[in-house]
């Protein structure tokens, strides 16, 4: 009962929709339990995330983060690797962005800084993924363990740098100085005033994220390396037997994955906060795993999943604002339910649907 037996629209459209519907149904029950009107809650959630310009702006802002971290997880997925270190890689990626911005912001406009920031964030993120990748490739230390351990190392490392080396003197917050205009990406509201994004921090890096989606698609489905990555992911033994070098594939895939995670920092640091600050990743790296799962590790799916999670973040904030009895922990419950149904219980509806969509003749032949 593989996905190949189902029409594409069922596999990519109907099943995610059913999972999502189930998640919202259960969330609705939770909302009823705490004594609020679930329909009203859904209305606020959707309106808050898509109903007006600024809401859409916030949704896209969060989606930008999730596209980067989702792509990072997806690329590793294709090679059968489970990179859950996006959190740490993004955090260290922030260092690359900050280096570029702090060094250049006084002297050049943002479009000169941007390539260096992209390069810096990707290099730092990739560097943070390198050791786990190397250990996996040569020693067989599982990346799930090592990447998550590297998240903690990243937190301590960045904490040290921010407090002892890069901190703005006299400030209580562990953060660098604020970047000048040369280190700030333009907000989309300033580029397209007619959309009315208002104060939403969505910025030019949204397009960088979309470009990254295209590049990842080209890489995975249109290059030799991409073929090797997919072959290795489907069946590592066969790939090695066919003469593909496993060490190179693992290391290169993880470097690309780490680099993509690191690029998330462009959106947060150069696009929105305009300074490097401690703990700016706040879980986007982990949500990236859910985004990649839901998006079927395909760039197009990831864009949609990222927007969905962007909606949950922005609409959720709006919801806990409008309905004080729905606390932020409740919002996390709703997000968790979506992750649960889309990720862990992905196969719950699949057997039934496969049965529904398989012509009876095929079944008979199978049974015979």
């Amino acid at each position, binding site marked *: 009962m593989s996905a190949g037996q189902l029409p594409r629209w069922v596999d990519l459209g109907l099943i995610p929709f059913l999972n999502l519907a189930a998640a919202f149904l259960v969330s609705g029950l939770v909302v009823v339990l705490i004594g609020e009107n679930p329909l009203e809650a859904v209305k606020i959630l959707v309106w808050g995330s898509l109903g007006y310009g600024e809401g859409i702006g916030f949704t896209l802002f969060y989606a930008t983060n999730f596209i980067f971290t989702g792509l990072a997880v997806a690329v590793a997925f294709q090679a059968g690797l489970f990179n859950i270190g996006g959190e740490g890689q993004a955090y260290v990626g922030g260092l690359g962005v900050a280096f570029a911005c702090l060094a250049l912001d006084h002297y050049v406009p943002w479009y000169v800084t941007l390539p260096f920031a992209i390069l810096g964030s990707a290099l730092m993120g990739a560097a943070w993924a390198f050791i786990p990748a190397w250990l996996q490739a040569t020693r067989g230390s599982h990346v799930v363990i090592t990447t998550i351990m590297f998240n903690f190392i990243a937190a301590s490392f960045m904490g040290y740098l921010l407090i002892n080396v890069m901190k703005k003197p006299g400030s*209580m*917050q562990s953060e660098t100085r604020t970047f000048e205009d040369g280190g700030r990406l333009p907000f989309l509201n300033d580029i397209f005033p007619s959309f009315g994004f208002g104060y939403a921090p969505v910025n030019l890096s949204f397009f960088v994220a979309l470009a990254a989606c295209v590049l990842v698609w080209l890489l995975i489905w249109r290059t030799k390396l991409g073929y090797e990555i997919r072959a290795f992911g489907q069946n590592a033994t066969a790939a090695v037997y066919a003469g593909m070098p496993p060490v190179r594939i693992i290391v290169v895939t993880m470097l690309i994955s780490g680099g993509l995670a690191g690029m998330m920092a462009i959106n947060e640091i150069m696009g*929105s906060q305009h300074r490097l600050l401690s703990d700016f990743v*706040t879980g986007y790296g982990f949500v990236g795993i859910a985004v990649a799962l839901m998006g079927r590790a395909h760039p197009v799916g990831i864009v949609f999943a990222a927007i969905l999670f962007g909606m949950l*973040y922005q609409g959720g*904030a709006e919801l*806990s604002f409008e309905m*004080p009895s729905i*606390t932020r922990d409740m919002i996390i419950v709703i997000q968790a339910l979506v992750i649960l149904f889309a990720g862990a219980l992905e196969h719950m509806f699949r057997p039934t649907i496969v049965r529904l969509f398989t012509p009876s003749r095929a079944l008979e032949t199978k049974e015979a």
Partner: protein
Amino acid sequence: MKKFLTIGTALAGLAISVAGAQAADIKPAVLYDLGGRNDESFNQAAFTGAEQFKADYGVEYRDFEIQNDSQREQALRNFAKRGMNPIVAIGFSQANAVEKVAKEFPDTQFAIVDMVVDLPNVRSILFKEHEGSYIVGLLAAMASETGKVGFVGGMDIPLISKFACGYKQGVLAANPDAEVFENMTGTTGAAWNDPVKGGELAKSQFGRGADVVYHAAGGTGIGVLGAAAEEGKLGIGVDSNQNGLHPGSVLTSMLKRVDIAVFQAFEDAKNDSWSSGFEVLGLKEGGVDWSLDDNNAELVNDQMKAAVEEATQKIISGEIVVHDYMSDESCPS
């Protein structure tokens, strides 16, 4: 949007009818830091103050717990747009957001706790934690039999060094030969919520001879006080009154009255006596204090009470000046 405005107006109307006709029409709001409303420490103190105000005046307030850094500005703006006034932001991390949003809404009054934002419509509320820490340091030195006392901080930031430095000055004032061990739990936000490590640090200080340990470490401190109770030593609580956590094993608590700050901000707005600018709450203003209740009555003898009373008077009169670590980022030894 219109609907929310209607709800807001209805709430305000309700508030007026409860509080009486002459009461000013205010819609106060609180924005907590990442720790959230129920962190049993700093943010919760703000929540307590807001609840107290609601109970005393029957005025509803709104609050919000942020999930990530981008929501700071968004929440402040949401409050301001809906006509909330005054808006109290808890924690120094809100400074950038308050500065930005306060400029956009010059007619709305903002307040920020633990940080200075220099704008005509912002009240910056600071606490003289060093004074309160000096007092508990005095008590620690007098209660100690070994002449060695400890300090466990949360995250390694100047604010916590301010606690440590005041404490040390108090200890040395009572016993010039005393030794003070200082440990910080960590360098990230996680250091506020690591009771296991807090307990370990306290135990290692006990191992080196300390018998009183003061913590300024949020949730981590629960482990510090637990370790003290376990080993038959004394702990000192912080922010809220933690004497009751381990009755008989908590010497006292250094109170940082964020609740008073929030309550006052709301009350001033209500009585039309709002003032912007600095508000520094020390021993004199009742912003910091030490706690004495049934749980620690036996631990504090009359001699200690007299010494604390004398020091408090001298600090209030200015005869004793407790050095503020943050004024020059150093502590006199």
